[in-house]
């Protein structure tokens, strides 16, 4: 195992059982993600991109195989240990922002900090820093419904980075945004990767979004393929 690898997947299988039917998404999947990487994952819908992110994020567990993060296995952790692990290590960014509608921007960003031992004033300070980072200091008191999609996604990014995780997982973060707003979001992710050393894995449909990443992998029917194979 290389110490540079943040994530390693060894011989991972993932199957879903629905009644008598078993759907196999991955069989013998191997991959590794280097520290400081900004990886884009592309592929047709249904190819297993979200399932892969769920496995990386410790939201779902593999049917078999090993997943290690910073040298530690996460595939066999209990639900409660996984929750703690997610809170400590992973920032999540979703396609539809997934902000709490009854909380203002600052309170949304504060959510992950409720899982830490920080005092109220320390939390406020970190929230302010995160909002400043995404350029929304003046919107702290705004409700999600009062913000544009791009602004909401920036709040979501602030929420993802507020507790300073090493790893960011983004599932089609620009899928719901227009070109210009999407580019702003992607630039922000790039900044987080380059200036703040965040390791990022981003799923996207959009080839021009993938260009912001340092490299792109293609997934098809649960297997990594070369881009040319996908086109064919």
């Amino acid at each position: 195992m290389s110490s540079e690898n943040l994530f390693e997947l060894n011989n991972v299988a993932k199957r879903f059982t629905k009644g008598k039917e078993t759907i196999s998404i991955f069989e013998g999947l191997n991959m590794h993600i280097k520290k400081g990487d900004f990886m884009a994952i592309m592929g047709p819908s249904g190819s297993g991109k979200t399932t892969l992110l769920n496995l990386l994020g410790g939201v779902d567990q593999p049917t078999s195989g090993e997943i290690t993060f910073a040298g530690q296995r996460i595939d066999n952790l209990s639900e409660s240990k996984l929750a703690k692990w997610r809170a400590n290590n992973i920032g999540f960014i979703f396609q539809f922002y997934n902000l709490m509608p009854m909380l203002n921007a600052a309170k949304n960003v504060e959510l992950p900090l409720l899982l830490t031992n920080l005092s109220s004033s320390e939390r406020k300070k970190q929230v302010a820093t995160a909002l400043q980072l995404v350029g929304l200091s003046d919107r702290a008191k705004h409700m999600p419904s009062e913000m544009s999609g791009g602004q909401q996604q920036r709040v979501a990014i602030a929420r993802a980075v507020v507790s300073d995780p090493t790893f960011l997982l983004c599932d089609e973060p620009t899928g719901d945004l227009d070109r210009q707003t999407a580019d702003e979001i992607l630039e922000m992710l790039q900044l987080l990767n380059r200036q703040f050393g965040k390791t990022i894995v981003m799923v996207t449909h959009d080839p021009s979004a993938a260009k912001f990443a340092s490299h792109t992998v293609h997934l098809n029917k649960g297997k990594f393929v070369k881009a040319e194979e996908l086109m064919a």
Partner: protein
Amino acid sequence: MKDFYLIYKNLTRKKMRLFLTTFAIFIAFLIFGAVMTLRSALNAGVEMSADNRLVVVHKTSFTNPLPYAYVNKVKTLDGVKDVTHANWFGGYYQEPRNQVVTLAVDPETYMTVYPELVVEPAQLATWFATQSGILVGERLAKANNWQVGDQIALSSNIFSRKTGGQTWDFTVSGIFKGNEAKVDTGYVLIHYKYFNETQSWGGDSVGWLILTTTDAALNEQVASQIDTNFANSNNETDTSTEQAFNKAFIEQIGNIGLIIFGVVFMAFFTILIVVGNTMVLAIRERTNEIAVLKTLGFESKRIFKMVLAESCLLAFLGGLLGLGAAYVIVTGAAEQMARFLPNLVLDENIVLQALGYMLLLGLVTGMAPAIAALRLNIVTAFSRG
């Protein structure tokens, strides 16, 4: 409790829904507080009645007076131990809305017939010796902050003084307590003689007689003996044991009580369904949000607790408001009903019971959605949304 803000925001996110569910719970506990108070007031009378005490009232109505001469006549009958009497004074303090239950009694015999009333011997002696002296029940004295030696003017809304006016001046000779907590001490005793000589209606009449029998086994016999004795007179009597007297009075209300009790039960049941259902819907609407919280690292049991806390908060919000309203209503009614229901108090017992039911309501209505939230699987929740 870092999550309180989140719980609070979830509870208050839909104002109309919050209002309606709170209102439903409010009504349930308003009814609960009022009915339980009524019930305990009714029961207190029966529980406290001595088993060898008889009450003699006018046959036509217990509000009609009896001739004073009956006291001595009853005394001579077989099986009668002690006899005393009482008159309804209809008192209030300063304003008619400050009702003070006041009975004009013969001090010595009254205290003999009611041994459960306890007074310091020195105070008792002073009262016996002071015509305008009064004995004040502890509960009433506390409520009005009356002390021994205080000058208190009580007015009657029935009687007038020979010298004019309806207000009598009294001195507090003593304070009586009950030998048990249940004994009602919410009234005042004044001298019958003083009352009778100063009131303008004239006529030596008493409101009702109270007597003790030498043996509780003789109750029925003594009662029929008294009623037979006064049969065919101008003032026929109706004698019953104190217990039966209180029970008869209660039974008139009792049937209503049963209906009310049914209503309370139905109200609670309905509210349980309504609030429970609302909670289920409220949490189902938040499937996606709960999945997000779990993804961020909130543990399932923490979310379980948050949902339960929310439903309990709702139950206590509506419940405490309802109980508060019941308290206001009961306190208001107590003044009006003091004569019939001296124990109309929403006491700690009822409050504790109500708090217990609020907690129960919160837990029961929150349990199903809390378990749903606990079990919610992030992956399936997101793929469903």
